[in-house]
C-alpha cells in the first residue's frame, strides 16, 4: 500500500513540476519507462508469490533501466536504434504481459 502511495506521490510531483527533459535524454525515456514497468510488475508478482525482496527489486529496476538505455544508445551508435528499441519493447512487453497474467491469477483466481 505504501509503495503504491509513493508511486502516486511521484506521479503528482512529476505532473506538477513538469521538469524539462534535456533533448539528448529524450530517446531513452520510452524504453526506460517500459523497463521500469517491467520491474514494477515483476515486483508486484513477487509480492503476491511471497518471495519479494527489496534489494532484488531495486537492483532489477536500476539494471533494467540502465541496460535498456544502453541498448538504445548502442543501437543509435550502430545505426539500428529503431530495431533494437523494437526488440527491447517486444521482450519487455511479453514479460509484462506474463507477469500481469500471473498477478491476475493470484488476485482473481482466474
Amino acid at each position, binding site marked *: 500500500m505504501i509503495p503504491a502511495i509513493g508511486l502516486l506521490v511521484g506521479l503528482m510531483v512529476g505532473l506538477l513540476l513538469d521538469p524539462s527533459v534535456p533533448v539528448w535524454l529524450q530517446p531513452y*525515456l520510452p524504453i526506460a519507462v517500459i523497463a521500469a514497468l517491467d520491474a514494477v510488475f515483476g515486483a508486484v508478482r513477487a509480492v503476491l508469490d511471497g518471495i519479494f*525482496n527489496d534489494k532484488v527489486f531495486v537492483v532489477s529496476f536500476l539494471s533494467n533501466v540502465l541496460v535498456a538505455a544502453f541498448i538504445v544508445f548502442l543501437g543509435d551508435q550502430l545505426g539500428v536504434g529503431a530495431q533494437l528499441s523494437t526488440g527491447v519493447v517486444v521482450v519487455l512487453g511479453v*514479460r509484462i504481459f506474463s*507477469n500481469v497474467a500471473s498477478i491476475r491469477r493470484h488476485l482473481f483466481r482466474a
Partner: protein
Amino acid sequence: MTTPVNPTGSSNPERRPDASMTLLTSMLERPLDPGYQEAADRRTAAGLPAATSTRTVIVVVLAILTGFLFATAAQALRPKPTAAAAAKAELVRRIESLQAEGTAQEAKIAALGRQVQDYEALALRQSGGADLSDTLKKLEVRAGAVPVTGPGLTLTVDDAPGDPNADAGSRPTTGFDSGQVSAADLQIVVNGLWGAGAEAISINGHRLTSTAAIRFAGQAIIVDFRPLARPYVITTIGDPDRMQKLFEPSFAGVYLSQLNQQFGIRSSLAASDHLTVPGDSAVRLEVARPLGSDVGSPTSRPSTSDRSTPTPSPAPADLSTDLPRGSVNSP
C-alpha cells in the same frame, strides 16, 4: 527442428514439441526475475521469512522515482503543438471564414440577380415585346446565368484509392501522382459530355459557362478560378439515356475507362430524373449590342447588371445568336 508442433499444446514427456523455441518458452514461462526466487531461498535457508517487507525506505523511494519517471516521460514525449501546427490552424480558420463570407456574398448575388430578372421582366412587359422574354430565357440557360433543373446524368470521378493526403502535416510533394485526376482528364470528360448532348454542366456545384476554364494550379483543379476538392461530381442536364448511349462509346468514355484500368481512377455514372445545375453567380456582362433602332424604349438604362445577356430592348432582332459578339461594352 522439424518436429511438428502439437496443436493441442499438451507436452510430450520425451521431447517437447516446442523444443526448437526454448527462447520463447523460457521468456513466456519464467518471466519473473530468477533473482527473487534465489533471494527467497537464501533467506529461508538462513531462517528468515521468504519475503522482505514492501515498506522499506528504498522501496518507497524507488516507487516515488518510478512515478516521477512515468509522469516526466509522459509529459516530455507528448507531441507538443508546434508553431507550424498553430500556423496551419490559423490558416484553416481564415480559409473557413473567408469561404463562409464568399458563400454569403454568392447568396447575395443570387438574390440581386433575381431582383434584376424581375425588373427585366417588368421592363419587357411594359415595352410590349412578349416573345423577347422567351428568347432571353433561352439565352440565359445557354450563358449559364440561371439554374437549370431537369433529368440528366451525374458522373463522379475520384482519385485512385490510397489517400495521398493521409499525413496532413507532411510537406506537399511537387511530383504528380498518376492516380490523381488531372485537369486534362476533366476537360476530356466534360467535352465528351458536351458532345453527348449535355445542355448544362456543373462540376462540384460550379456551372461551366462558355468562359469557364478547367485548369491545374499546383495540385488542385481550378474551375472558373475556384479550386475543387475531390471527388469531382459532374452534373449534366440532358436526356440521360441518349447521353449515356453517346458518352460511353465516345473517346471520353473510353478514356475514362482506361484511366480506371491503368491508374485506378474511380468513376461512376448515374442517371437521375431530377437534377439541378446552379447558375454561375459570377456571370458578368462583357459584350452587348444594341438591337436595331431604339423605338421608344422605356428600358434604355445603362447595362450594369450581372448578366451576360444583352440588355433587353424592344426590337427582338438579333437575340437568336448564341453569344453576343458585337461592340464591346465592358462594365
